[in-house]
Each structure stands twice: as structure tokens, then as C-alpha cells.
């Protein structure tokens, strides 16, 4: 069996990693199904100041083709968004749900690099004024993970 094929990962269940911009903890249910908790941050300079966001997400993956150094996957994510603006009391929050498909490449026995793309539906509302907005966004995600044990 060639080195670093995904089937070699069966002994490993728990993995941690980082993405753009945040971190994640992943648990392999079996060779094809995986669950993952993610934390991401982001910031944007708005018209009236800097806005900072935090996202807590739960992802599910379905992997294909384990007998290779790379494997495709499909998945879905449900997340909670919380944002605030510096020096004011404006607060924005809401859910985000989406689906994605991507490719993971194994770098060694325990390391892997991944990329996925997919549409997300964000529904955000401001707490004080009740202004809300729902939009469809296309989001690319990259990550690096390390299988621990």
C-alpha cells in the first residue's frame, strides 16, 4: 500500500487544525463520516467603524475514495454568527447554513490540507434596530489538520 493513503488514517480519530481565520476540532466517526467543530473570526472596516465577527460552526463531512492520497468530500455546516462594532452598541447576530464540496490532500501520516467551496445562507439581524438581511454567499475555505490519536 502506498504511503499516506487515507485508509491509513483509520487508527486516528481526533484531529485539530487551523483555517482562515480560526481553528477546528475534528472527530472521525469512521473512514467516511466526520464531524467537526469550528471557530472563526473576521473583521471588516464599515462606513462607521470596524466590525468584528465570531462564528461557531458544526460541520459534517462525507469522504470518498480513501485508497488514495487525496479524497473528495461533500458536507454541510450550521453556524452561529455574532458581530459587534467598535465603540458603539450595535450588535449583529444570526445563523448561517451551507453546503460544500472539496478536496483533501494527505501530506504525511498525520497531516492533511483541504479546500472546499460552497453556498451559504446568512440571516443576520441587528439587535437595537431590528434591521435584518438574508443573503446567499459563496464561501471558500482552506484548512490544515493534524491527526492526534
Amino acid at each position: 500500500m502506498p504511503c499516506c493513503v487515507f485508509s491509513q488514517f483509520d487508527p486516528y480519530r481526533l484531529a485539530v487544525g487551523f483555517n482562515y481565520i480560526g481553528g477546528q476540532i475534528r472527530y472521525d466517526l469512521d473512514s467516511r463520516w466526520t464531524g467537526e467543530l469550528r471557530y472563526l473570526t473576521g473583521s471588516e472596516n464599515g462606513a462607521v467603524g470596524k466590525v468584528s465577527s465570531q462564528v461557531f460552526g458544526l460541520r459534517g463531512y462525507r469522504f470518498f475514495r480513501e485508497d488514495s492520497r487525496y479524497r473528495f468530500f461533500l458536507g454541510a455546516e450550521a453556524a452561529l454568527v455574532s458581530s459587534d462594532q467598535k465603540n458603539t452598541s450595535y450588535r449583529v447576530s444570526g445563523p448561517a447554513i451551507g453546503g460544500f464540496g472539496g478536496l483533501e490532500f494527505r501530506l504525511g501520516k498525520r497531516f492533511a490540507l483541504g479546500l472546499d467551496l460552497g453556498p451559504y445562507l446568512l440571516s443576520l439581524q441587528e439587535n437595537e434596530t431590528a434591521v435584518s438581511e438574508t443573503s446567499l454567499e459563496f464561501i471558500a475555505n482552506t484548512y490544515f489538520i493534524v491527526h492526534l490519536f
Partner: protein
Amino acid sequence: MRRIILSIGVFMIFCGISCAGLHFGLGKAAAKKSAEVIEEAVQKSTAAASFGGEGSAESYNAPTNVAWVASSSTTVTVSWSIVSANGYTMMLASDQNFSSAFSWTGDLNQANTTYAGLTPFTNYWFKVKISTHPDSAYSSAISTKTDSDCPGGAIFSSSVMDLSKISGIRPLGALNPSGHTFPTDHNYYAIKDFSATPTPIALSAPCASHLTSLIQINFSTPAVFTEYHLEFLACSQFMFFFQPCRAFHFNNQPTLL
């Protein structure tokens, strides 16, 4: 299976190009959309104010009814009328041009603020504007003076020297004799020892105070000698001097020997 995956992938890419913007990272996308929501919220608040919902058409241009409500020797409190769902930027300075001002932006709907750690008996200027509207203007500046930190009654609480060693006191108010150029009120203590080499008498500060200046002057005429001038600050409006003194040293207390 491979064709299905490929088809899904192509569809997603097509959808991304034609249906929505592409973001790198869900956190970044959330921040961008949140900024858009907040901007819309600000515009909604401004529209409500300009159409008389919470005030006049000009209410977002400059806050009104800006006034001092309390002050002490080191603190001041100021308040203003607010337009609901707006934040405010406040500025305090010790000069009327606000050249070295302390500025900060408070919480939404904040209607007052208190500054602490100020200098007693000093003038300060204050102005405020709405922070959540890009075109807002500052209010007219108002000024006040912090209170003096001097006690209301007598400031001196003890004698500057052992009274058994003096024969009399000339009260404060005596101006110097002609020929002496130091233009302040003096009071004099007439010591009993009029010998050519009198025994030095210890001096004590008459109240709690801070030594703010110590000057040594060396004379060569009419004789070679040294004298010391000491300046003390009792409170923001009152200072006193010990001068001239023949010698001094500090003895863990403001005592001169």
C-alpha cells in the same frame, strides 16, 4: 459516483460566479455582511431622527442641551440630549482649541459622562457629537473650572518653629523694608538668641504640603556664605516659602535644621 461529484462541483462553481460573491472564510463573510447590516441600521436611525421620529431635522448634526451637571476638584460630569439609537463621541481638553484633547466614543444612547483624575482649579473645555452618523458635527464647546482643593477653613495647622525660642511674631502682611526687592507678604519670627553665632532653630512645615522648589544661592560679597530658598505647595491655590535658610537636611519629614 465520479460523474455526480464532478457535476456537483461544476454547479457550485457556476453558482458562485453567477449567484453570489465569493468570500474566503466564513468569518470574513460574516463580518462583511454584518457591516452592511449595521450601516443600514445607522441609516434607519438617522432617517427616523430627520423625519421627526425622535427630534428635529437637524438633530443628528450636533447634540443639544450640553451642560455641566457636577464638578469637584478632580472630576467633572457633563450631560446632553440624545437622539435614540445613536452613539456619541466626546472630547475634553484643557485648552479651548482642543489641541491636546482626550477623545473617546461611548455606548449607544449614552447621555452623560464623568471625567476623573483632573487637575484642581483648572479650566476644561468639552464638546460632543454623534458618532454613528458620518456627517455629524460637534456641539458648541462649553467650559468649566474644577474646584479648588484647598480646605474651606484655616490651612496652617501648626507653628513653623518652637515658640519658646522666639520673642515675637510680625504677622503676614509686612512688606519688605525699602531696598529689599522680594515683592511678597512676609511674616517675621523674632528669635531670642541675638548672639553673633546664634543656635540654628529647626523649622517645620505648618501643614501638609509638597516641596516644589529648592534653591541654593552662594554669596561671595559682602561675605562668603550660602543660603537656601524652599517653596512649598499646600493646595492648588496656596503656596508658601522658607527663605533664606542657613542650612537644611531632610529627616524623613519636611523639617529643616
